[in-house]
């Protein structure tokens, strides 16, 4: 099974609240100097799912990232964890992409990856069997890019996914989370799955993997290197364009400071808290 995993580099969500700053003019987060950006959490879960499928069923895992030069760090980590190869899409025209632009660029990159594998794999005409990504990125929290890639490549897609198993060649048994539990769904390959954290903890890269990854050659593609999908009559599909504009990015001012409810004893404070909540109509 040949799997492509889409991985985004994001600001570390563990940035202490006091250090999280927004540049309202640039409409961007100011990266704190001491905290390096990281692999998006859900994408790490997607990579873990891909590596487990490879361990059980063979095949290859290709890590793909769209982003500035620093995104090579998350690709190196993916290689260190066990991915066979990595591709980096880097072009200033794609920076700060919205979901449409990111999905369009990644769909084209995946189409190219499929072509370079000689359209091999179980699904010959595609050159890949499965695309995995995280259910959403922790910076924009949009959850659209994976489903967009599937739309452009005309693949079945499911999100969010907590479990993946191969039932037979060409079909998967997938558990998709719902509001009340989950659905068990039989999915035809090739397909795209947006993975959630329930799938299991991502592994730590072994030292040997880290050493090897530091020497790895990672190809870099610009927008000009991304071919249109070549299926639609309208030529340049999908268009590398934006649908949304970020008009404003800001931090909400905290409301008045916390009112500390006190009492002669902790139990007394508990009773006073109940009275205060009643007084303001919360309970």
């Amino acid at each position: 099974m040949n799997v492509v995993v889409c991985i985004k580099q994001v600001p570390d969500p563990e940035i202490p609240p006091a250090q999280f700053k927004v540049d309202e003019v640039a409409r961007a987060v100011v990266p704190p100097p001491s905290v390096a950006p990281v692999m998006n959490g859900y994408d790490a879960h997607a990579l873990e799912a891909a590596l487990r499928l490879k361990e059980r069923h063979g095949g290859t895992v290709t890590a793909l990232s769209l982003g500035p030069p620093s995104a090579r760090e998350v690709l190196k980590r993916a290689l260190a964890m066990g991915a066979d190869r990595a591709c980096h899409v880097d072009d200033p025209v794609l920076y700060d992409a919205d979901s449409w632009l990111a999905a369009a660029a990644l769909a084209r990159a995946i189409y190219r990856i499929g072509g370079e594998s000689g359209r091999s794999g179980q699904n010959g005409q595609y050159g890949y069997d499965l695309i995995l990504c995280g259910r959403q990125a922790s910076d924009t929290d949009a959850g659209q890019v994976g489903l967009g890639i599937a739309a452009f490549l005309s693949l079945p897609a499911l999100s969010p996914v907590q479990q993946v198993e191969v039932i037979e060649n060409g079909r998967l048994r997938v558990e998709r989370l719902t509001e009340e539990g989950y659905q068990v769904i039989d999915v035809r390959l090739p397909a795209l799955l947006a993975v959630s954290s329930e799938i299991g903890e991502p592994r730590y890269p072994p030292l040997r993997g880290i050493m090897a990854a530091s020497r790895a050659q990672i190809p870099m593609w610009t927008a000009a290197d991304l071919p249109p999908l070549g299926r639609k009559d309208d030529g340049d599909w999908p268009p590398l364009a934006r649908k949304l504009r970020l008009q404003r990015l800001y931090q909400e001012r905290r409301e008045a400071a916390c009112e500390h409810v006190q009492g002669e004893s902790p139990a007394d404070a508990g009773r006073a808290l109940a009275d205060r909540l009643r007084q303001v109509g919360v309970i």
Partner: protein
Amino acid sequence: MGTVLVVAEAQPRHAGNMPALAPISYELLGAARRLGGDDVVAVLSGTEVRPLAGELAAHGAAQVYVADDPALADYVAETYLPVVEQAICHAQPSLVLLGQTANGRELAARLAFRLGCGLVTDCTRLAVNAGTLVMTKPVHGGSAIAEYVAEAPAALQMATLRPRAFEPAGRVGAKPAAIVGLEVPAAVVAQAAERTRVIETVRQVSSGPRLKDARIVVAGGRGVGSAADWHLVAELAAALGGAVGATRAVTDAGWAPPSLQVGLTGATVTPDLYVAVGISGAVQHIAGCAGARTIVAINRDPNANIFKHARFGVVADYRQVLPALARRIAELRGD
């Protein structure tokens, strides 16, 4: 603002329950009416959902598209998508609203990419400013707020709305509903089954109100200290008639099941009251509860970050605070 189309959701059906709209449907109608006035239409898919069309009309939908078909009993995007597409084709809306629910968020993204329009997910505010729709949502786990507009004037825009972030629509009286039945072609059903076929639907529901719908949530963190003391959190939740939540540290430790996790990798909740017990207030947890109207923090550490988000706080050992708090609440509610 032209026509606003609301993609309504019905409550999942189980043995015995009556057909009903999901709470998000009323919130979608509420938001749509504030933007679209009377020019609001709705679409609903499922099985045995036709009786709910009148309910949508009574809450402000001038026209209701209904696809009522046994083939739509289980949600899968492949069968629900063509239904919404038919409604869009017929109603020609300028804005389509869905819920930021498990199904709504998947359907919305699939639809937006198919139709070639912009989509902002998880909106907490929609406003029209000088003729332009501004869609506001929390980003970076709630640490920042982003306002999006369409890159270029577009015929169609889409948004999903965070549950409980918008006032639900009230009744508008007994308006005669214009109901349009929609069909799911057999070929679509057959193709959908070949691509994604639901084999089984598993419910995992805890007792008490569901975490995501609860008006009151009592959540415990690492500071609860042990599985043996977890019952104190549950008892306060019971006294308040609320749901129990937990931080990731708690679910990782096995004191509470993973389904109760609130935060970046768990549920996002927006209750009226969120009581945080022994929770330090890490960004990842705050991401899941920042939308609560009132946060109350009970923690021994006066410097815990949670107090920066709380409206009321008690700095003390929760083991002594909680039982007294629960008893006093019972007394007050008994009045």
